[in-house]
């Protein structure tokens, strides 16, 4: 409950403040969000499985964001940034869906 409230609070904060993102970082922001979402869905599933561990969550969250940003950055330098960000979104998207399905099975037993 509290984590969900924290998420909503963060969204409101981000929309209201709208801090200026440096131009150099702009392309990585959506990728970072998707990577972080993957970590969050993994954490929720782990919580329902009863094996949640906050240290693993923090490490996977931060490393997910950094690695996704780094991969896209590298792709930008090599001229395949668009394709690599598509790849990152596809892989993370599949994982998010798989974890969401597991969460659904837990919650609804179906």
């Amino acid at each position, binding site marked *: 409950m*509290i*984590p*969900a409230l*924290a*998420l*909503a*609070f*963060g*969204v*409101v*904060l*981000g*929309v*209201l*403040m*709208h*801090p200026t*993102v440096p131009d150099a970082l*702009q392309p990585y*922001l*959506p990728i*970072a*969000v998707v990577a*972080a*979402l993957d*970590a*969050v869905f*993994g*954490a929720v*599933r*782990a919580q329902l*499985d*009863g*094996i*949640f*561990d*906050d*240290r*693993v*969550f*923090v*490490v*996977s*969250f931060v490393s997910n964001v950094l690695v996704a940003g780094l991969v896209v950055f590298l792709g930008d330098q090599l001229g395949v940034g668009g394709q690599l960000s598509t790849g990152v979104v596809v*892989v993370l998207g*599949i*994982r998010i869906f*798989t*974890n969401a399905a*597991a969460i659904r099975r837990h919650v609804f037993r179906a």
Partner: protein
Amino acid sequence: MPDPAATPRRVDGSMSLLVDMTEAALDPAYADAARRRSERLTRPERPNGSGRRTPLLRAVTLLTLLGVLTGVAAAQVRRSADAAGAVRRSLVADVQRQTKETDQLAAQADALRAQVAQARDKGLGDDASGRALAARVAALELATGQTGVKGPGLVVTLNDAQNANSGVGNGRGGQLGDDRIYDRDLQDVANALWAAGAEAISINGQRLTTLTAIRSAGESVLVDFRPLSPPYRLSAVGDVDAMEPAFADSATARRFTTYTSLYGLGFSVRRNADLSLPAAAPPELHAARDANTTTGGSP
């Protein structure tokens, strides 16, 4: 080297990437951490209770961070879309303003041209040679499209199909964009009308002269470098009784009749007893000189 018989090959082995991705969807580190914790718990060290606060705090901090990231990213996307829309709107306004300005200037040019003609007629004088010159100028102007003309004629209307796809290409080979009218179509119809005996033609109010170009830029058709939009009305003044059957019998007209049923293009021919065609802008001749005058000099 593992014995291949010991571990039977998986049926979906060739899709190992997808299998890995779905089976390892939950970070294996969670399982490892849980195992380590249970090992630790077998050796009782500290009772639960004091260590419960920090994990929650960390998770809340991270989720707030994620929320901020999401909000900022969404706001960013919305704002850049707004900026692009504003640029587009201002460009559209620019185009409309410039088009209006061009129309005004064209009207001004028309008025000035009429003044010039009047002054010229006055300057040519009222004697026999002056009148002859004035008559010759008038005949030449009529023939070169420098004056507006009236008379009976045909109006050929061409239009895109009702729900035309956007797309460039005018092959009419069943490709995208077959149901649109292109510069080539207007050229064909104009040529067929000339061949049928038209004496003066205008397309959507743009008079055709010997130097008028019918071409396209992107998806829009330009006549005399003015962009036109469908439907395209080609008004042709001429001997209607001869022109109508000659045009109807031309290969172009027959082709467009076929296109009407094939692609749904709009194509119609009507008689009009009293057409009125505007004058064309005078051609800008930079290098050509009158062959009859020995002294050169700019016109």
